[in-house]
C-alpha cells in the first residue's frame, strides 16, 4: 500500500507540505480538498514520486518510494495531471494506447480489449476514431482519463496493488461527465481493488463519491476522515475562508450537503 507518515515537502525555500500522514487503501477513494495554493498538487506530485519528500516517510508496499525506478513506478501508479497539453497530431486510440507503454508489448488482442473497456468507462467510445486535436477541452480530458485508466488496468498481476491519482479530473467536464468520471473511478476501485487519490474542487461531488476526505490548508492537514466527519462548517470555513452550512442530503442518506455562503464578508 502507499503509506505516508508525517510527510514534508519544500519547493525551493517555500515549505509546501508539512506533517501529512495518509494511507491509500485498495478499493477506496481518498478525496483531497483545499483552497488554491493549499498544496494539493504538491501532495499529489510527492505521492507520485515526482518531487522528493523532504521529511517523514513515504512507502509503497513497505519499500521507500524513491527506491523504485521510474519504470517500476509507472507499472504501479498512474497519474492524470492538471490540464495536460498535447499539441501534436495523434489519433485518440494512439493517445489512449500510451497507457500500456509501461508494460512493453502487450498482446494485440488484450490491448484492444483494454482500450475498448477504458473508452467505455470514460464515455469516449464515440471519440475513438477522431483526432485528438480536433476534440473539445472536455473531450480531450476524457481521452486522457481513458489513458490513465488503461495504465491502471494493464498491470500484469490481477491482485497487484495499484494507485490511480487524478488532479482535478472534473475541471473541464460537464455535470454528466463529472458524475460519470467519478462513477468510473469508483467502479474500477470496487472491481479491481485500485486505490485512488483525487484532488477535487467540488465539495459535494467529493462528499458523494469519496470514501475518505482530507482537507488541506497552507500545506497542512486540517481534518481527515469520512465526509460526514470532515465536512463541518468550522473546517470548511478554515479551509476556504467562506462560511458554509452543512445539511443532510435530501436524496442520499449519510451524505452531507454543503451550501457555501453566497457572498464573501468584507
Amino acid at each position, binding site marked *: 500500500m502507499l503509506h505516508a507518515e508525517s510527510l514534508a515537502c519544500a519547493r525551493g525555500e517555500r515549505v509546501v507540505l508539512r506533517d501529512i500522514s495518509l494511507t491509500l487503501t485498495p478499493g477506496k477513494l481518498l478525496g483531497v480538498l483545499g483552497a488554491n495554493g493549499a498544496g494539493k498538487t504538491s501532495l499529489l506530485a510527492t505521492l507520485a514520486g515526482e518531487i522528493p519528500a523532504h521529511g517523514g516517510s513515504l512507502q509503497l508496499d513497505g519499500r521507500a518510494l524513491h527506491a523504485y525506478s521510474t519504470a517500476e513506478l509507472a507499472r504501479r501508479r498512474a497519474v492524470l495531471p492538471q490540464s495536460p497539453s498535447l499539441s501534436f497530431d495523434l489519433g485518440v486510440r*494512439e493517445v489512449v494506447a500510451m497507457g500500456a507503454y509501461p508494460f512493453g508489448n502487450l498482446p494485440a488482442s488484450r490491448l484492444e480489449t483494454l482500450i475498448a473497456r477504458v473508452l467505455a468507462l470514460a464515455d469516449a467510445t464515440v471519440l475513438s476514431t477522431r483526432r485528438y486535436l480536433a476534440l473539445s477541452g472536455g473531450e480531450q480530458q476524457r481521452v486522457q482519463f481513458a489513458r490513465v485508466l488503461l495504465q491502471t488496468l494493464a498491470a500484469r498481476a490481477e491482485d497487484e496493488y495499484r494507485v490511480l491519482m487524478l488532479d482535478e479530473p472534473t475541471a473541464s467536464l460537464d455535470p454528466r461527465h463529472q458524475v460519470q468520471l467519478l462513477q468510473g473511478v469508483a467502479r474500477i476501485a470496487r472491481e479491481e481493488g485500485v486505490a485512488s487519490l483525487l484532488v477535487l474542487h467540488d465539495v459535494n461531488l467529493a462528499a458523494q463519491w469519496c470514501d475518505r476526505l482530507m482537507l488541506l490548508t497552507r500545506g497542512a492537514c486540517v481534518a481527515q476522515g469520512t465526509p460526514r466527519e470532515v465536512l463541518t462548517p468550522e473546517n470548511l470555513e478554515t479551509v476556504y475562508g467562506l462560511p458554509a452550512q452543512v445539511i443532510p442530503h435530501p436524496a442520499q442518506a449519510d451524505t452531507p450537503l454543503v451550501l457555501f455562503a453566497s457572498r464573501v464578508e468584507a
Partner: protein
Amino acid sequence: MRSPSPALAVPAAPRARRRPSPLQLLLILCLLLAALALASASSGAVRIPLAHLADLWRTPADPQAAFWRNVLLEVRLPRVVFAIVVGSGLAISGAVMQALFRNPLAEPGLIGVSLGGALGAVGAIVLGAQSLAIIAPAAFVGSLLATGAAYRLGTVQPGVANLLLAGVAINAICASVIGVFTYQATDVQLRNLTFWNMGSLAGANWSMLAWLTPWVLLLSILLIRDWRALNALLLGEREAQHLGFALRRLRHRIVILCALLVGPLVAVAGTISFIGLVVPHLVRLTQGADHRWLLPITLAGGALVMTLADWLARMIVMPAELPIGIITAFIGGPFLLWLLTRRQG
C-alpha cells in the same frame, strides 16, 4: 452502456481526412525514391540512357558501355547513396528533436550540432588544413563540443526551454567565431568555406559511404526503438515520467544519439538546412505524429527530398553544381512561411 447522445453520434465527416495507411505511404515513398534515384543517376554532364541500363553489363567490351558503367558506379551511384544517407539522417534527427523539445520548429541545428561542426571545419581550413582527412574530423569534434557545451549548460536548470536557449547562445558564439575566421580567410580558403556553410554532396565516394551508411542506419534504428518514449514526450514531460520514462536519462540519450548521428553528416556534407525541419512536418501532415511510423517514414522522406534536391543542384547550372544547402533552403524557407501562415488560419 447508455447509447451516446445524438449530438455526439454525428460522425465528424467533414473534418476527417482520408489518410493512406502508414505502410502504404512507406511503400509509395520507397518506390518514388527508387525511381528518382535512377533518374538522378542517369542525368548529369554525361547522360546515361536508362533504356540501355541492362546493356551496360551485357556488352563489357564496348568502350562506350565501359565509360558509362564507370561513371554510373564510381560517380553517380555513390552520390545518390550519399544523398539518401544524409537526407534520411538529417530528417530523422529533426523529427526526434521536435519531440524532445515538444516544438514542431526544432531541428538538430538547435543544439549546436551544425554550427559547431561548421566552426570546426572552418577553423581547420583557415588554420591551413587542406585535406578532408583533417577537416572532417575537425568538424565532427566541433559539433560534439558545441552540443556538449549546449547540453551541459542548458541542463544546469531543469526544463527543456533552458536547453533550447543554451543552444541558441552556443550557436550565436559559433556563428561569430566563424565570422572572424571568414574575415581572415584567403580567397582560396573562402571558396572552401562556402562548402561548409552551404553544404555539398560532392565528396561522395564508396570508402566514406562504407562506414557512414551503417553508422546512420545503426543510430536510426536506436532512435526508432525509442518511439514509445518520444510519443510519451509529446504528452508532456511530467506525463512521460508518469509513463515510466526517466526524463533526464531519456533526454541525455536522445541528445547524444542525435549528436553522434548529425556530427559525422556535417563533417562530410557541411551544414544542410531545413531537411530536418521540413520533412518530419510533411510526414506529420499526412500521417500524424505517432513515432512508431513517423520515424521510418521520415527516413524515407528525407532520402527522397535530399535525392531530389541533389538532382536539382546538379541540373540547374549543369555542368557545374549549386551548393545543395541553397536548394534545400530555397524549398524550406517558403515552406516554413506557408506553415506559419497556415497555423494562424
